[in-house]
């Protein structure tokens, strides 16, 4: 692991109230040079609160945040020159054009005047946004706005980028382009990133490691692959068209923990070594499948398990159909 550019120590945020709300509860983590760290968790887990504290737009109740070995509270202005932030939900100025917005953020990031226009143009081209550079933000679609926000994040040559759902509301091809850009920034310029996202496949593709937050606490940190493989078992999914009765009979006999998705599809979690026997029992029962898939657990399964939405891992009771 490379030296930490960002170090978070025992960070805690309690919002006053009756009762007080503990939004972030004693979390510690670090972000190394060139590392992309995913921040995952269900709604209300504390991801956005954590990011706001990392930007110093929200003060922590206790704990410390340091970038490049400097304390954020004491050296805020110096540090934030090298930190880019973008959220699909924090809009830019609506009545300004794309170009004007980016010029302002390039100036705020102290980009030298000789490079400013060139930098803005390069980013707009990269995100396929040149065609609407003269348009006001209010005239753009959600996807176009998200692309402009991404340009804003990188306009100041950040060393660390905090990206809050950067591909929300993007078409798949543009989202793909964004992921490629993010990886390119890391590869070419060593930009480190903290990345929140609700698309688990994207997190698996982009992030080196994932922090999983629930109720303000970090409950897991590992690579996406390791987190996924921490879910034991294999998922067998199949569809037996027009054989609903036979399917229910088979479930009653061989897989009481199966989840029936609809009248003709089911999903079973089982131990790896049980998979051949399970499929054999299906065949013996005379079920004919139109689809059959055998899958290892994914990060999404981990997410669902952690948020208690996954009912059917081996040994657990299945959800009623």
């Amino acid at each position, binding site marked *: 692991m490379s030296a930490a550019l960002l170090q978070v120590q025992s960070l805690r945020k309690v*919002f006053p109230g009756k009762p007080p709300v503990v939004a972030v509860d004693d979390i510690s983590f670090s972000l190394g040079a060139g590392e992309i760290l995913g921040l995952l968790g269900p709604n209300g887990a504390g991801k*956005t*609160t954590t990011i*706001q504290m990392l*930007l*110093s*737009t*929200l*003060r922590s109740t206790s704990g410390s945040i340091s970038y490049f070995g400097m304390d954020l509270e004491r050296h*805020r*202005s*110096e*540090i*934030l*020159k090298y*930190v880019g*932030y973008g*959220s699909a*939900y*924090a*809009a*830019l*100025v*609506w009545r300004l054009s794309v170009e004007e917005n980016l010029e302002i*953020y390039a100036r*705020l*990031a*102290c980009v030298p005047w000789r490079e400013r226009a060139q930098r803005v143009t390069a980013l707009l081209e990269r995100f396929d946004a040149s065609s609407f550079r003269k348009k006001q933000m209010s005239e753009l679609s959600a996807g176009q706005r998200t692309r402009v926000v991404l340009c*804003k994040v990188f306009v*100041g040559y950040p060393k660390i980028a905090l990206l809050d759902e950067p591909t929300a509301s993007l078409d798949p091809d543009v989202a793909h382009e964004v992921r490629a850009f993010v990886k390119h920034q890391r590869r070419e310029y060593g930009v480190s990133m903290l990345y929140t996202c609700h698309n688990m496949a994207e997190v698996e593709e982009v992030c080196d490691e994932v922090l999983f937050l629930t109720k303000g606490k970090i409950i897991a940190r590992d690579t996406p692959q390791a987190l996924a493989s921490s879910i034991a078992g294999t998922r067998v999914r199949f569809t037996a068209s027009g054989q609903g009765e036979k399917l229910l009979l088979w479930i009653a006999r061989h897989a009481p923990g199966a989840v029936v998705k609809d009248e003709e599809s089911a999903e079973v979690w089982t131990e790896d070594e049980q998979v051949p026997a399970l499929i054999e029992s299906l065949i013996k029962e005379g079920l004919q499948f139109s689809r059959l898939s055998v899958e290892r657990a994914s990060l999404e399964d981990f997410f669902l398990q952690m948020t208690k939405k996954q009912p059917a891992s081996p040994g657990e009771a299945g959800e009623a159909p």
Partner: protein
Amino acid sequence: MSFQRIWAIVLRYCYYFLRSWDRLTDSVYWPILDITLWGLASKWILTQQEGKVPHLALILLTGVVFWQVVWRGSYEISVNLLEEFWNDNLVNLFATSLTKYEWMAGVMLVGLVKLFLTLVVGIATVWLFYSLNIFVLGWSMLPFVASLLMSGWFVGFFSSGLIIRYGEKIQTLAWVMGWMLAPFSAVFYPLNVLPEWAQVIARCLPTTYVFEGMRQIIANGSPPWDYVLISLGLNVLYLGASVAFFSYMFEQRRWRGLAK
């Protein structure tokens, strides 16, 4: 026509009205303010010999134009802050290396530029419509204008401090706060028209000395430099305090977060 639907619309606006400081203020504050200002101005005019005040039109119009300096100065600061709220852009701005003092300097500069526009338009309109020349005040007008602008800034930072702390729900302060000082500032009438208790408040305001001074220049042509100095001194004091207040309230807001 459906009575149910009409009633639904009545309820929709009534519920909003009861939860909205803006609408409540519109219904109560502005009528009271207008009645106070123009009532006191009328009282002053009526107490003059035969109801005649020398240079009355120039005094009133100079008051109108120069009060704009205070109001615009204040408005520019608080509305520019509100713009960031309305655009959801406050977090974006302060997630950069921008400091609160840099932001303050920026909005003061914007206010200065817009003030120039307001003054030019105001003075030109008075000259074109009424053939009255506000430049009769001469160059001595400049320190008065500077002082009024500082007053606008201190009011603006004070109201912005409250807005940043409590959010958009008190956005009406951006329009209301500057005008709160108007009845006490003797903009359209001399200080002695005010009741005793109000005169005590008025003497603590830098704007009072400016408008009293302007009336003196119109009356006898000589600028009262002691008024300029008192006004500038008070403004330095209040502006310093309001900057400190804004800074404190900004930090208070950070405990809750700059995001909406």
